[in-house]
């Protein structure tokens, strides 16, 4: 099987020849091409060239679209701060007063520069690599998207204490989410990864997720035309995955490095695709030997689980990670039977 066949198999509930490998090398491509990050996160061709190098050197089974959620803040009118070695961050939230969302226009996917950048990057990657490898779109779920507009604290306050306004904001943003995710599929994404930044146990109690978030997510996911894989965003996620597994079009979940595959599998049943859970943002600190040991532990734990993808969890693999570490992750799925 090539990468595409392997990923297509696990996404459609069939057995792959081996575990696919997912590594968040979105940022890493810039290091491989020496591209300044301002350019990398605004020029789709520059991004695609970086991913071309990622694919050539490391052969992951998935190539990711730009993994930089602040681009969504930018698409709504926010400004970004760029760094030398990490994805951009929000310089200042778009909304200082949550109720001012009435004054914002939803971004136009055909003309908004940030959105055009993201969709073109997928299109280029799909046209160059789409026969061999899966291209993943990256979007934000509608309950988390307001974080990009006003910051976590203001959105959390609004959500907790201004329920009517929160409902209005979610109702306003939901059609944009559906339209945007479907555009990513049309551009060539085989699945869309959704960092669930708000609906995690670190932010919300389960009861609020169940009562307030699930109806919105159900309505939003019902209208999308492809598989969704939920992403842990760097925080433990497992305690809520059983809820999300019931949502339309959710085919998988990426676990945090602190989540247990065994516990999660026991809670969600056999069919949901589980990914992870190497600690991606810290892998520049590991030796090759440690990397192999970490992979081995996960692979042995999952050896009888066909719906599993070995991968890094959380945000990007740091740009200064030695290539040998990334190679060690990629090769571990081939080597597992020799260990």
């Amino acid at each position, binding site marked *: 099987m090539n990468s595409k066949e392997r990923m297509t198999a696990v996404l459609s509930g069939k057995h792959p020849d081996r575990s696919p490998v997912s590594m968040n090398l979105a940022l890493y491509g810039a290091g491989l091409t020496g591209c300044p990050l301002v350019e990398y996160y605004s020029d789709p061709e520059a991004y695609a060239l970086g991913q071309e190098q990622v694919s050539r050197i490391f052969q992951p089974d998935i190539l990711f679209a730009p993994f930089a959620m602040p681009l969504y803040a930018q698409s709504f009118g926010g400004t970004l701060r760029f*760094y030398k070695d990490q994805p951009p*961050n929000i310089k200042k939230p778009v909304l200082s007063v949550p109720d001012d969302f009435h004054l914002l226009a939803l971004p136009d996917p055909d003309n908004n520069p940030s959105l055009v950048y993201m969709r073109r990057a997928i299109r280029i990657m799909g046209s160059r690599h789409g026969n061999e490898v899966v291209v993943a779109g990256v979007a934000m779920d509608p309950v988390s998207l307001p974080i990009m507009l006003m910051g976590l604290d203001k959105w*959390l*306050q609004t959500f*907790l204490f201004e329920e009517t306004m929160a409902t209005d904001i979610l109702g306003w943003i939901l059609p944009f989410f559906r339209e945007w995710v479907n555009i990513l599929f049309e551009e060539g994404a085989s699945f869309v990864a959704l960092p669930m930044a708000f609906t995690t146990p670190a932010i*919300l109690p389960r009861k609020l997720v169940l009562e307030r978030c699930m109806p919105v997510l159900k309505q939003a996911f019902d209208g999308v035309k492809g598989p969704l894989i939920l992403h842990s965003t760097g925080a433990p996620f497992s305690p809520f995955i059983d809820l999300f597994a019931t949502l339309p079009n959710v085919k998988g979940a990426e676990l945090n490095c602190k989540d247990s595959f065994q516990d999660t599998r026991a809670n969600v049943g056999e069919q949901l695709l589980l990914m992870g859970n190497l600690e991606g943002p810290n892998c520049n600190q590991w030796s090759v030997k440690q990397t192999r040991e970490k992979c081995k532990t996960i692979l042995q734990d999952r050896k009888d689980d066909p719906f599993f993808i070995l991968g890094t969890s959380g945000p990007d693999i740091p740009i200064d990670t030695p290539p040998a570490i990334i190679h060690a992750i990629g090769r571990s799925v081939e080597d597992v039977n020799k260990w």
Partner: protein
Amino acid sequence: MLSDIQQKVLAQLMEGNRVAVIDLIDEWAVQKQYRTAVSEILEPVLHEFGERWYRGEGLSLSHGYIAGKIAEYLMEKCLEEEEQNDAAPRKKKGNLVIGNIEDDYHSLGRMMLGRFLEISHWQVHDLGNDVLAEEFVDKALEVRSRVIAVSAMMYTNALNIQKLRREIDDRGLGGVLQLAVGGAVFITRPNLIREVGGDGTAVNAFKSVELIERMWQTSTTLGELP
């Protein structure tokens, strides 16, 4: 061991049910007044809550924020009660300056800290987000605050606290003006407090109140503010 009312309040707080907690406190206040609810309900519940948070027992940011909102509600009710009873407000322990460092806009932790400090009878001067080093020190001198509590969520922003450290030291205020640092990044990077020159840190807003009281005491043993 929590009393029956304390357990009920804690249980509702754990569910994230702010309205139910306020109903319980209102019910209590009909018989015993709001000011007794501070010491007999809120303080013990928040202490237990803080311990659970410290132990990582299934608490979320929402829980902390709801607790802060309940504290704010109770404080307002206490003030109303004092006005109605024509009672003198309880004496404040001192003035404290808090804020998010330059470039940082993550105000949640700072706002929670402010509420818990107020409920602990500190007069809080909250400078808000994106505060420059000299603004912190100017305000601290103006209101005679012996501690500045500065918050940052992101590593890149937290490094701006170094400017505040320099500002304090350049004005010869090291020691008598203590620098408390906090925010999520200080938990994930334990060495960051040394890197930015903080005098102390705590794992959450509840523990921060204890920390700041200790730092205030330390400051008084080291001299007077100019």
